[in-house]
């Protein structure tokens, strides 16, 4: 036994025991423990195996920088790999497993890598697994991945909920230690909206680990009083368990709140994690400082721990790191740890100080060895002793714990995430944040201060600065007296010479000092290159412990100041954030919003099969019993519509009302065909171009009054077309009087199509819809029997007699039901977008399969819709440029296989008969195909070089990349059905 639980003291509740499981063993801890403190209290020093060499590893820190104690927490779908035991709150029933070991933590086969380590230095994989190239993917990479690594992701879906939320405040305080608490208190008392966020489950930061008294009270009581006051104010939001991980533009901070990660069975009504975006007018970064490890031989042995961590375990959790404790330090922190531990009865084996002398107070009778360094640690799965070297003389000292302190680095990550480079401070022997502007201030030890009293004062002072910038007057609270502080000063000691074992710089990625020198020798001297060559700082801890030491060591190797080396780049996230939190509720079918058509219910009860169309579900076809497959249903629907009448939901089309004195002039400029003289009460097919002359979208334009139009767009371009019109009106022609409003959602719109459409329509429309009164392309408001106001358009996409009837959306289903009823004597048939598509191909109408961004009106056979006589419209000017008028442009044609039994495929290429398939011989491609039930054969639309001159030519349809045999097809007009348009006008 070495590490142990004290009988009293600390902030754990000994009356509330908690049972948990680690690698199959049942262990116990207390409420208020982290998993790490509970493991340590159970004397479980060995908690993991290292990434590359599989060396035994133990707990090093008591916070979020932990590189070693990464465990898999939870079981089944809830198991989460690489969780830092040092921040995992203990809960009843917690199940933890160690990682990267096989078959067990104590007997790990991979430890053989430690013996092979002379070959496994930095760049080993790059150099070794070079050839044969094919081996990389199949042999080397899987092998390396199996041997090296962390925990495994589960393959089951995450059963828990996640949320995202926004928060707004005057002042965000990041970190609830002395500086943060005082900053929050100062700002809150001034009436500011304050958010105080801290990654810990208990607010108080480093104060929870201190034995000082503040204002004659224990530090923890001082914390409690401040928090009580803050909690009583409704302008203050306290956010424990919330890591602010990123600083983004405009002072928005990203944070993740662990709402239920400390519960065995989370409530289904709450998320397990919540991702916050906090928009703060100002922010104070009071993230404290990180203690640096010392880099000496065997510094990774379980039982070697940061001095400050040992103090946290002792003072906050009532856990002694060992009974016979050695300390290796270069500053005051090590002595304070020795004093604290000695006061709780631990024996101090020795204090080894790298400095020549130290004026520190020591526990009585403690042996001090100055000007000395540890070169090796003894023991296997836990430390049993160390070898100290002084002036060439070596000595072995027995111990069951070794506490190290290499000085302090302010935690400045957030301040440097938006491009600011950390600045080296000779005075502090650390990197500090530069001035990052008036909206983020650093306070306390994050700003380089060390004493608790100084941090309290600084927090308050920085809050006053923020308040002044926000124009809110404030005053500093009375500063309490702090007693029992120690001097945390230190002298830099980057690397302890004479190491007789690996001296690790980056524990998590197993990077040791020799890797750094190799990187220098091999030309990867720039710190960003060193990082990537050695993988230093690239583990999940992002080098929180090791990076500054690295800079110091590299500077030493190069004989320059760390200022010249600089740091690698700081980026979000400060600590790992789960994908679940990033996704929030946007998972699976909720990954994007869905839109529901007003006729969805009608389609559903008529048995529709639906298809995703953008955000919509559109009815695709309506199978009837006995039909085998969609083609049979679609064929029936097409024949029924062309013989009798059919009803189809077209509500998803974009519908835009256009108003204004200049509405006609405006439309004349955005459509390529003429719009000025469109008569009131009439509709017209319209073509919009892009400014480069290509077709953008098509639709209809209906005029309801001189200054009032309704235009429709395709479903796919509804949103973009609206934005395009707004751009033209606002940015291009702001002097035109024209206004828009989308009414896409106001109207349910249905196509009533077929020779008997009028017979059905007459039964429900009050107005005269005879051919004379309501001819082809008529468009106007009508009244349905019973008084419902509607709009009727006589337009056709199928070539049949056809109407589009629009009714207010809430009435859509009722009107469609009545139409079905009225159409029953005429065998009315509901049809979906598949049948719609077949009929438009039969009729040679284009969709975005043909309007593919590379086709001009003339290419599509719509040259008549290019009104060259208009002075200007979008796309006109560049339509005349070279290339758009070339003779061999691809033109829309029809195709029909010579062998009637063959089926065309969309996307197939066209070749002259006998020509080899090559880019040079490419004659065009097939854009749309269908089986035409009217013609009883497969037909297609295609874009073919000079196509309109080639009707009658036989051409090879080539689609071998997808495994289809060549087909010979005849080029023909794209209009397969009713080329005289006789049916439209019936």
């Amino acid at each position, binding site marked *: 036994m070495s590490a142990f639980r004290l009988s009293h003291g600390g902030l754990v509740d000994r009356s509330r025991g908690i049972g948990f499981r680690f690698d199959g063993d049942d262990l116990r801890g207390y409420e208020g423990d982290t998993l790490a403190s509970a493991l340590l209290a159970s004397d479980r020093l060995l908690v993991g195996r290292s990434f590359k060499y599989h060396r035994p590893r133990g707990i090093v820190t008591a916070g979020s920088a932990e590189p070693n104690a990464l465990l898999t927490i939870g079981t089944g779908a809830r198991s989460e790999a690489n969780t830092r035991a040092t921040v995992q709150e203990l809960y009843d029933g917690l199940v933890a497993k160690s990682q990267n070991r096989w078959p067990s933590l104590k007997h790990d086969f991979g430890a053989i890598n430690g013996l092979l380590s002379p070959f496994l230095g930095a760049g080993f994989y790059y150099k070794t697994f070079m050839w044969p190239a094919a081996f990389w993917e199949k042999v080397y990479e899987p092998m390396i991945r199996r041997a090296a690594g962390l925990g495994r992701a589960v393959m089951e879906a995450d059963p828990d909920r996640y949320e995202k939320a926004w928060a707004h405040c005057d002042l965000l305080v990041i970190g609830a230690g002395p500086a943060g608490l005082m900053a929050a208190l100062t700002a809150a008392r001034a009436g500011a909206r304050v958010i105080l966020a801290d990654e810990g489950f208990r607010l108080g930061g480093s104060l929870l680990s201190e034995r000082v008294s503040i204002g004659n009270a224990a530090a923890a009581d001082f914390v409690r009083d401040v928090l009580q006051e803050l909690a009583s104010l409704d302008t203050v939001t306290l956010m424990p368990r919330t890591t602010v991980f990123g600083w983004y533009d405009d002072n928005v901070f990203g944070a993740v709140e662990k709402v239920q990660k400390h519960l065995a069975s989370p409530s289904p009504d709450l998320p397990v994690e919540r991702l916050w975006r906090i928009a703060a007018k100002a922010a104070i970064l009071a993230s404290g400082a990180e203690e640096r490890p010392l880099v000496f031989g065997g510094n990774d042995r379980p039982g070697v721990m940061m001095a400050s961590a040992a103090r946290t375990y002792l003072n906050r959790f009532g856990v002694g790191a060992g009974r016979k404790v050695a300390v290796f330090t270069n500053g005051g922190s090590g002595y304070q740890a020795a004093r604290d531990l000695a006061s709780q009865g631990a024996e101090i084996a020795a204090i080894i100080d790298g400095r020549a002398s130290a004026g520190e107070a020591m526990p009585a009778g403690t042996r001090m060895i100055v000007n000395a360094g540890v070169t090796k640690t003894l023991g296997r799965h836990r430390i049993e002793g160390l070898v100290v070297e002084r002036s060439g003389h070596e000595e072995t000292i027995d111990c069951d714990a070794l506490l190290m302190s290499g000085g302090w680095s302010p935690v400045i990550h957030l301040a440097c995430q938006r491009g600011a480079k950390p600045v080296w401070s000779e005075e502090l022997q650390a990197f500090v944040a530069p001035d990052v502007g008036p909206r983020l201030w650093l306070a306390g030890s994050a700003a380089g201060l060390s004493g608790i009293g100084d941090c309290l004062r600084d927090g308050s002072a920085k809050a006053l600065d923020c308040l002044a910038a926000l124009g809110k007057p404030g005053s500093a609270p009375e500063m309490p007296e702090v007693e029992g502080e120690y001097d945390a000063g230190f002298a830099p000691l980057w690397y302890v010479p004479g190491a007789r074992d690996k001296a690790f710089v980056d524990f998590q990625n197993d990077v040791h000092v020799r890797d750094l020198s190799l990187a220098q020798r091999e030309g990867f001297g720039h710190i960003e290159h060193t990082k990537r060559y050695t993988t230093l700082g690239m583990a999940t801890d992002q080098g929180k412990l090791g990076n500054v030491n690295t800079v110091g060591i590299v500077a030493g190797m190069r004989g320059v100041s760390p200022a010249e080396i600089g740091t690698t780049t700081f980026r979000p996230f400060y600590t790992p954030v789960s994908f679940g939190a990033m996704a929030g509720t946007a998972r699976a079918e909720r990954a994007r*919003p869905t839109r529901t058509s007003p006729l969805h*219910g009608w389609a559903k009860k008529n048995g529709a099969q639906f298809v995703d169309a953008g955000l919509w579900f559109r009815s695709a076809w309506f199978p009837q019993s006995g039909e085998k497959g969609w083609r049979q249903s679609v064929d029936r629907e097409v024949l029924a519509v062309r013989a009798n009448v059919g009803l189809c939901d077209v509500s998803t089309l974009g519908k835009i009302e256009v108003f204004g004195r200049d509405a006609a002039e405006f439309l004349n400029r955005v459509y390529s065909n003429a719009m000025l003289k469109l008569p009131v009460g009439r509709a017209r097919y319209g073509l919009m171009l892009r400014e480069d002359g290509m077709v953008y979208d098509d639709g209809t334009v209906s005029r309801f009054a001189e200054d009032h139009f309704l235009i429709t767009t395709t479903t796919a371009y509804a949103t973009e077309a609206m934005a395009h019109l707004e751009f033209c009106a606002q940015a291009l022609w702001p002097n035109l*009087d024209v206004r828009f*409003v989308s009414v896409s*959602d106001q109207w349910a719109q249905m196509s009533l199509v077929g020779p008997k459409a009028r017979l059905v329509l007459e039964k429900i429309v009050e107005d005269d819809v005879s051919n004379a009164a309501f001819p082809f392309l008529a468009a106007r408001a009508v009244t*349905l029997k019973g008084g419902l106001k509607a709009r009727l358009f006589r337009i056709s996409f199928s070539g049949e007699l056809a109407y589009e009837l629009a009714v*207010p959306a809430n009435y859509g289903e009722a009107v469609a039901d009545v139409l079905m009823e009225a159409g029953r004597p005429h065998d009315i048939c509901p049809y979906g977008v598949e049948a719609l598509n077949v009929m438009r191909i039969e009729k040679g109408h284009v969709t975005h399969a043909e309007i593919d961004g590379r086709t001009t009106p003339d290419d599509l056979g719509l040259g008549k819709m290019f009104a060259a006589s208009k002075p200007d419209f979008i796309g006109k000017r560049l339509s005349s440029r070279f290339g758009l008028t070339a003779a061999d442009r691809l033109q829309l044609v029809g195709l029909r296989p010579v062998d009637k039994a063959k089926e065309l495929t969309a996307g197939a290429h066209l070749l002259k008969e006998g020509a080899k398939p090559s880019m040079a011989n490419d004659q065009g491609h097939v854009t749309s195909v269908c089986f035409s039930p009217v013609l009883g054969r497969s037909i297609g639309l295609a874009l073919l070089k000079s196509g309109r001159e080639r009707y009658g030519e036989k051409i090879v349809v080539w689609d071998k990349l997808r495994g289809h045999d060549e087909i010979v097809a005849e080029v023909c007009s794209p209009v397969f059905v009713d080329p005289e348009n006789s049916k439209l006008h019936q």
Partner: protein
Amino acid sequence: MSFMPRHILEERIGDFGRPVHADHLTVLRRPAIASVLAGGPVEALSGMAEVSLRPVGPGQWLAVSQSLPGSLLAESLAAALAGLGAHVVDQSDGFVLMHIAGPNVRRILAKCIAVDLHGDVFAIGQAAAMMCCHVAANVARVGADAFEIAVPRSYADDVFEEIVEMGREFSLTSAFDDA
């Protein structure tokens, strides 16, 4: 011939006798809503009782009335604005109007809306177009702890579901106003 309107959320919350908790979402079954487009200010409408005029953007408003029938609202607005170069479009079927109120309403909406809804910033009587659950919505503050959200009908099912989901932690209930 008479046609029965059907609310898009009918299937989802059609049943009667649903509980009403402190935090509650009411779906208004037949509010009158109209888009108003005008070149300048619409003082002519300030005298219209029972109509709440909610800004969308420059020269555009959403007029909402819970007492006038849909088409009547548009007609009376058009009459009031006649000759002023303004245009009115009935949108009573184009939007779904939800009223959400309760002690936790801001905490629920913080998960749906990015805009700061603090009373000092977004006061009672204020309204604006903003994103709500990824969708373009018009949000109005109608009380200290009460908001009205108008969303395009086709998105309403999705937005409703998301708001209810975000309200789970506060046991948010929902029902039609006439339930």
